[in-house]
């Protein structure tokens, strides 16, 4: 059995800021929970896998998010620079 965790980061207008990040993790079959004596062991298998996947998927999604932030800031700053250089040219002439 698998658990799929997907992270979507969306803008206010519901458009996607980054592409979705997905991670899959193997989890125990329902049949593995045969009784109280194996519950801890089986659930531990589930919990460790899920924690790792959760951290992994959020890490990847956050990297994408920050890359998008950096990209936007870079383009904003280059627009500003262009505007400033135009202003400078005007003041010189």
């Amino acid at each position, binding site marked *: 059995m698998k658990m799929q965790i997907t992270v979507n980061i969306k803008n206010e207008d519901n458009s996607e800021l980054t592409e979705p990040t997905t991670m899959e993790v193997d989890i125990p079959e329902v049949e593995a929970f045969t009784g*109280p004596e194996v*519950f801890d*062991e089986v659930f*531990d298998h589930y*919990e460790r896998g899920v924690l790792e996947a959760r951290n992994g998927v959020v890490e990847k999604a956050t990297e994408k998010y920050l890359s998008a932030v950096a990209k936007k800031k870079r383009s904003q700053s280059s627009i500003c620079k262009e505007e400033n250089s135009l202003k400078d040219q005007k003041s010189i002439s």
Partner: protein
Amino acid sequence: MQGGELLERPKEYIIEAEVGQLEVDTFEIKKGSRKVFSTKRNLFPETGPKEHHKTVCFRELAVFSCCEMPFRKSAEKLNRTLRRKEEQMIQSRTMANLVEQEAEAITACVENKVKTILKCHDFTDEGVCTGDTSRYGLLANESVLSKERVSQAGKELNEHLPKERQLDVESLQGTCEDPTQVKALISVDDVLCKKQKASGRKRGSAPQKKKERVKNTVAHIQKRKGETYTMTTATIAQMMIVLLAFLLSNGLMIVPGQLVFFTDGAQDLLGAIQNVFAFLPFKLILDWYHLDKKCQQRLSMAMKGKEKRNTVLQELLAWLWIGKVDQAIVYLRSLHPDDIKDAEHIEKLIGYFSRNLSFIPCYALRQQLGLRVSSNPVEKANDLLVSNRQKHNGMSWSESGSHSLATLTSLRRNDEHMLWLLHHDIRFQFDAAAQKPAA
């Protein structure tokens, strides 16, 4: 499915997990008044009323963080790490209870294991052998260092010793165990912590005469290959039984060679060792550091002035270092009465030497031969298992609180904690500790 009435109980079973606090629906199937299925009984581990079940990951985080920091701090850290909501916060008292519960279960598991091992090897629960003991004493007295090696070491030492202190190497033959031919090297010691008061002092009541202490007995066992294992118990008597079972289950009792104990010379400790291990020849060595300390303490109270004390101490230790206890006693008896402040302490020191005469070896020769002269591994284990966590300003402990923390710390140092968390069992073997020496 099985027929009968299906009852759903929403969010009835609560699980404390690292992924969060999980409120799980439970189901019951009833046939008439008879419960034929219950998720609380047939699927989830049983819990007490209002008790939350704790997952392995959660227990690993909660229980073992308490071995390193105070309960309040570890509760704060856990709540922060797990981002617990206000109503789901774990309280420090819960942490303390969790530690005690876990340690009680470990102690019960060890007790059961010990009983089974002793029974399998024809020992009673008190450690008395009911079968043939001859196989345990195999080559115990022959497993000593060769005459050539001892003579060579003695010769090297004598080159640096004054004439009156020359070693009689012949008399020392057979006293040094061959480190490759020992069953195990065992260091045992007690470690004391301040005891928590049961209740506050009442007005007008007499102050307590003696500070009450909580005692933990710690043992450090080293195999000839160097693998180690540490264990703690509440009493020395218990420790000896657990130790015997550990040696039996690891096959060390039938290994040819000697069992060597290192102690601080405490009478109860010596008595307990002799009680349980009397059926086989073993060697007991008084730790050099404790012998040195004992001399310092007694002479400080016995001699007039620091300078005289230091002179006597230097001379005394020089005799003891080469194992000449008789000469040390003669020297103490020859001290000038004018230099002595309190002769009672001199007599007490002589009494201490006489009592421990057979446990004082020639430390100089042992050191020259690369053999151990002290019980320092257990002193280090005391720090790691008890003192580092329990001996700080303002800390005082209940018996169960102190033993619980020591038990859990020792479980982790022996690398047995994952087996315990997953299967509520311990290996009770050196193998687990091989990767991570206990001290």
